[in-house]
């Protein structure tokens, strides 16, 4: 009979308390998702290319899991507390009827266990489903058919989820049970909300708001202008200021709201308007701390989600392969490679085969060995012209020696980047044979260079040097064209004046990273042979997967097939897959955890708001009885309730939105966030914002419906409507 009571109570509390149960299920699902990360298709796929990095990433997961456990513990504690509060009257009655406290607590634990088991089943099912969906979506989005699908179900993850969840649930129940143990029966029977209406003095409230605003302003200022000073210390300062500011602001606001309510005589007299405001005020003023905490959580969640989204946008833009041309690069013995690549099993996969010849330029060899080598290149005219072309501020820094060493970055002007790129390699620049480059140009459908005898062109690595366009560099081209027209010599090699071809289209020289150079001189073959340092001479065999095959099967699967054949051959090679995999890894590593944490924060914040509202609702239930006796219609009360829910969610949300937007701005201006791809920015930003909104709305609706249900239950006396 006792066990049946436990079962029935567990069942009833699940039914009555959907939000509580949903919270438990969410917690379980969150655990499972993070724990089953290793079974995600994309992770399995990346293991093949970036196994070290992936292992490192997975090794960090316990930290994330621990953090999630920590956060969800508080959520569970809060949910259980809410649940016990709801039922304190019932418990009081049991005790009055003679049940011993030990027994009551035992019963609670037993009920908790049943509920937990059900939550575990539900949570693992939902978590498993979500993990599967995420796995499929991600591999659909990036894999284009190459990432094979495995069921992401992971027994290890399930076991860890069960252990983690049961332990925090147990600890929470023991803590709360202990509290129950020391509570007086009277307290349980007549627990009510604090009746004290502490409105504070208007001065105190203004002071709170003022202090809050000052803290917030300080935080915003730091975020916008001084974010990365003192090695990130200011970030912590900004976070603390922002949190304190939010806390004070909301505290002051809650109380001020009451005073404003007093002042706004006229407008607020329609219907339950005044009542609604007072309820809202009570909810905010009496629990300003937890409202502020939710606001902070939502702020963090907005920033984290934006961060995750930007990583995804970054990936999408690099995935479009603007500069990368070749799918494979094979190196090794020339004959062997050529023979293999033209053999029967490979021909189907090879198109635009290009033997790239590259090497460094000799230096003047008259000088002794222990003196720095002297370059054959004389480029002072070009160098002066480039310096002249830099913007004023950079020029001053450069000439005064403030710029020492070069950092190539997209914050510099084109001229400064070019200067740096050329200067670093000028002693013995890389040389590329013209025919090699002509074959590359041919592959992209451009005309060959046909260089004259003393003519050359610059090659810049598009992966390392920021370029707006791959086919021209405005500043350089202007300089080159001007010199051409005026017959001026900008550069000479071994005392031979060279003319420099402008507007040469630029593409990646190899499939991935086997050649990592900043710049090179493209010179006629005869000159290449004459000037190249034999010790640095190298050849690379590049090719592409034929267009036809790509059209038929997509890029990825022929690439995987070719890769398998090459692997078997034992030749040294690299492929675009590595490039792709690396970028994908950055995205996965960068976005998975941030997005996960972001959504976790959001869900926790929403749950706190929801439970808090329902607690207030429950505790002030008799107010609604009174209202209906004074003639309020059910519809009227529901409307008031919905407004309250709206306000309760909107207040912390709006403050969080302001803080979040400023946080995002700060991160953009300090280059911690990039939104490179404008085209994708809006759809992705919009879809993430939409997902966040949907989550908040789901919570809002769930709370409203629960509140409606409470109102509907008011018909304990048949006539009230």
């Amino acid at each position, binding site marked *: 009979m006792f066990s049946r009571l436990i079962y029935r109570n567990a069942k009833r509390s699940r039914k009555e308390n959907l939000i509580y149960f949903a919270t438990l299920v969410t917690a379980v699902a969150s655990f499972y998702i993070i724990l089953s990360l290793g079974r995600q298709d994309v992770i399995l796929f990346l293991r093949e290319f970036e196994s070290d990095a992936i292992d490192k990433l997975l090794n960090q997961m316990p930290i994330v899991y621990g953090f999630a456990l920590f956060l969800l513990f508080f959520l569970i504690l809060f949910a259980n507390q809410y649940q016990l509060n709801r039922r304190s009257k019932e418990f009081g009655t049991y005790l009055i009827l003679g049940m011993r406290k030990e027994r009551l607590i035992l019963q609670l634990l037993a009920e908790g266990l049943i509920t937990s088991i059900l939550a575990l089943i539900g949570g693992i099912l939902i978590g498993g489903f979500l993990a599967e969906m995420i796995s499929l979506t991600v591999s659909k989005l990036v894999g284009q058919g190459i990432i094979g699908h495995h069921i992401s179900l992971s027994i290890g993850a399930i076991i860890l989820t069960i252990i983690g969840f049961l332990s925090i649930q147990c600890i929470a129940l023991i803590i709360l049970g202990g509290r129950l143990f020391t509570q007086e029966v009277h307290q349980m029977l007549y627990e009510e909300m604090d*009746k*004290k*209406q502490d*409105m504070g003095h208007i001065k105190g409230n203004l002071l709170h708001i003022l202090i809050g605003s000052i803290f917030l302003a300080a935080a915003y200022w730091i975020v916008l202008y001084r974010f990365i000073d003192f090695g990130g210390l200011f970030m912590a300062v900004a976070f603390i200021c922002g949190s304190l500011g939010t806390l004070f602001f909301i505290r002051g606001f809650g109380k001020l709201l009451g005073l404003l309510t*007093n002042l706004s005589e*006229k407008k607020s*007299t*329609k*219907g*339950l*308007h*005044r*009542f609604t405001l*007072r*309820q809202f*005020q*009570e909810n905010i003023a009496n629990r300003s701390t937890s409202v502020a905490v939710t606001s902070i959580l939502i702020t963090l969640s907005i920033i984290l989600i934006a961060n995750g989204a930007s990583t995804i946008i970054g990936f999408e833009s690099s995935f479009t392969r603007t500069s990368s041309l070749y799918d494979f690069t094979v190196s090794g013995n020339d004959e062997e490679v050529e023979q293999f690549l033209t053999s029967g099993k490979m021909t189907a996969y090879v198109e635009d085969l290009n033997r790239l010849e590259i090497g460094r330029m000799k230096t003047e060899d008259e000088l002794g060995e222990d003196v720095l080598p002297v370059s054959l290149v004389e480029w002072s005219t070009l160098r002066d012209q480039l310096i002249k072309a830099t913007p004023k501020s950079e020029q001053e820094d450069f000439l005064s020696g403030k710029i020492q060493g070069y950092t190539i970055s997209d914050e510099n002007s084109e001229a400064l980047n070019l200067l740096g790129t050329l200067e670093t390699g000028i002693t013995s620049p890389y040389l590329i044979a013209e025919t090699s480059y002509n074959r590359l140009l041919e592959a992209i459908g451009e005309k060959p260079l046909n260089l004259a005898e003393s003519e050359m062109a610059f090659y810049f690595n598009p992966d390392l040097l920021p370029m707006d366009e791959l086919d021209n560099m405005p500043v350089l081209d202007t300089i080159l064209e001007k010199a051409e027209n005026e017959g001026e010599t900008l550069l000479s090699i071994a005392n031979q004046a060279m003319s420099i071809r402008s507007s040469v289209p630029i593409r990646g020289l190899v499939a991935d990273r086997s050649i990592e150079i900043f710049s090179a001189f493209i010179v006629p073959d005869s000159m290449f042979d004459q000037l190249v340092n034999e010790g640095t001479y190298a050849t690379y065999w590049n090719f592409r997967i034929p267009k036809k095959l790509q059209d038929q099967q997509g890029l990825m699967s022929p690439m995987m097939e070719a890769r398998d054949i090459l692997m078997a051959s034992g030749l040294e090679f690299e492929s675009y897959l590595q490039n792709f995999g690396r970028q994908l890894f950055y995205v996965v590593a960068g976005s998975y955890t941030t997005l996960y944490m972001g959504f976790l924060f959001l869900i926790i914040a929403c749950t706190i708001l929801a439970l808090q509202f329902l607690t207030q609702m429950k505790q*002030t239930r008799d*107010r609604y009885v*009174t*209202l*209906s*006796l*004074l*003639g*309020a*219609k*059910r519809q*009227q009360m529901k409307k008031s309730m919905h407004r309250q829910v709206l306000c309760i969610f909107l207040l912390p949300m709006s403050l969080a939105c302001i803080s979040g937007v400023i946080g995002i701005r700060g991160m953009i201006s300090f280059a911690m966030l990039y939104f490179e791809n404008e085209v994708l920015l809006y759809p992705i930003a919009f879809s993430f914002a939409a997902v966040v909104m949907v989550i908040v709305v789901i919570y809002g609706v769930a709370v409203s419906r629960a509140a409606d249900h409470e109102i509907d239950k008011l018909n304990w*006396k*048949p*006539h*009230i*409507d």
Partner: protein
Amino acid sequence: MVRHEKLLEVQDLQKNYGKKDNLTKALRGISFDALSGEFLGIMGASGSGKTTLLNCIATIIKPTSGRVLLNGKNISAFDSKDLAEYRGSRIGYLFQDFGLLDNLTGQENILLPLSIHGMDFAKANAQLNELADFLEITDILDKFPSQMSGGQQQRVAAARSLISDPDIVLADEPTGALDTRSAKKLMNKLESINKSSKRTILMVTHDPNAASFCSRILFIQDGIIFHELRRKQGEAREKFYERILQLLAQLGGGSANVL
């Protein structure tokens, strides 16, 4: 509005609680009229059915059978929409536990019925001031119930029950939670409201002192009315109080039995 001579008619009211096995017959056929401008008291021991009777009249619970007519309209047969119209506007309530919303100020509590019914506020302000003045609560209008004494709270509740100019005020043990002094003050106020503005009041009580302010008292036991006492023209309240005590002693052979 033309005031009906018989403002309230209660006809053979019956109310049963519970199902077959444990049926409680709380009201076993009660009939009486309340005239316009009357201050009618209902007395009875605990469990005699007073609250049930008042709640039936107040439309808080539905009677098992019988009718309640207010101004000739059968309000016990009203649907929920009509009921909401009546509550708070045509019927004012005064409860033992005051029934104030503790997160609204005194003034907001008083004006609540008007807000709910979307009534005009401009006129109400004058009325509010007058009521507040009369009930001596002007100073505490901006306070919250927790900042008021019990007597003040009940007078605020009284103001709320009167603000919408109802046809009848129903009070269930309004002095039940008050000390003697506050109780007396409240009853004085109610009495003079009844006298000066001909407001009809129906009050349930088991306190003879409070009952002595009424103009007529019905005695109820086990769900039926078994006696009636009228205050004579010009009779002093103290005299009437003596008579009530006497009657209670006669009826029960000691007040303990009856009350």
